[in-house]
């Protein structure tokens, strides 16, 4: 019930195209859904995050779509650029209070390659 399932494992997109990565979760107690971007040899960087009280959040070219009833959320990268080539992780956590302590459960990651 703690799992977060991410798909696809890898994605190839042409420059200017839209990249879409999907995640699904089972634990309805999850209350926070971030996306991280990781370049080779670097630590993951927080990209964008959403709470269940909204269905969409947009920051620049990055958008999270959230479907609470389906227990799914996705990352959309508009006008994808070669510099976006990285591994993307979705994650989920419960409210930091109580015994969860903000622990993140991660998806397995998606390797995105944007061809010029």
């Amino acid at each position, binding site marked *: 019930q703690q799992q977060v399932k991410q798909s696809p494992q890898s994605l190839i997109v042409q420059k200017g195209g839209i990249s879409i990565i999907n995640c699904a979760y089972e634990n309805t107690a999850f209350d926070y859904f971030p996306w991280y971007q990781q370049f080779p040899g670097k*630590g993951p*960087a927080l990209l964008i995050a959403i709470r269940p009280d909204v269905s969409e959040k947009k920051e620049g070219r990055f958008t999270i779509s959230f479907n609470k009833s389906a227990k799914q959320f996705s990352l959309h990268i508009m006008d994808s650029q070669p510099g976006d080539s990285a591994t993307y992780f979705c994650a989920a956590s419960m409210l*930091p209070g109580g015994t969860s302590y903000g*622990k993140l459960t991660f998806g397995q990651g998606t390797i995105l390659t944007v061809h010029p």
Partner: protein
Amino acid sequence: SQTIHQWPATLVQPVGSPLSLECTVEGTSNPNLYWYRQAAGRGLQLLFYSVGIGQISSEVPQNLSASRPQDRQFILSSKKLLLSDSGFYLCAWRAGTEYFSYEQYFGPGTRLTVT
């Protein structure tokens, strides 16, 4: 602003040798601290977390241990390394004093190779 440091950046150690990885956070007080391991560039597994000095919780049984001797210092250790301990070790922090602060920030990581 807050920054998180990890060292060393890379480490090659023989099987059976001890290990000590260090993580420090600057610019915040009483953070929640986390150790993750990432194998083969995919999937982050939470190993330990700490909500205060001397308070350590383990997520998975393993050959590793963690300690928090100071508020902003988190150490990952092993007495005898195994080949399976190889991986990319990441430290992360969250603002522990803010109840609704969800954001977790990662350090640059330590690449450990056990030979």
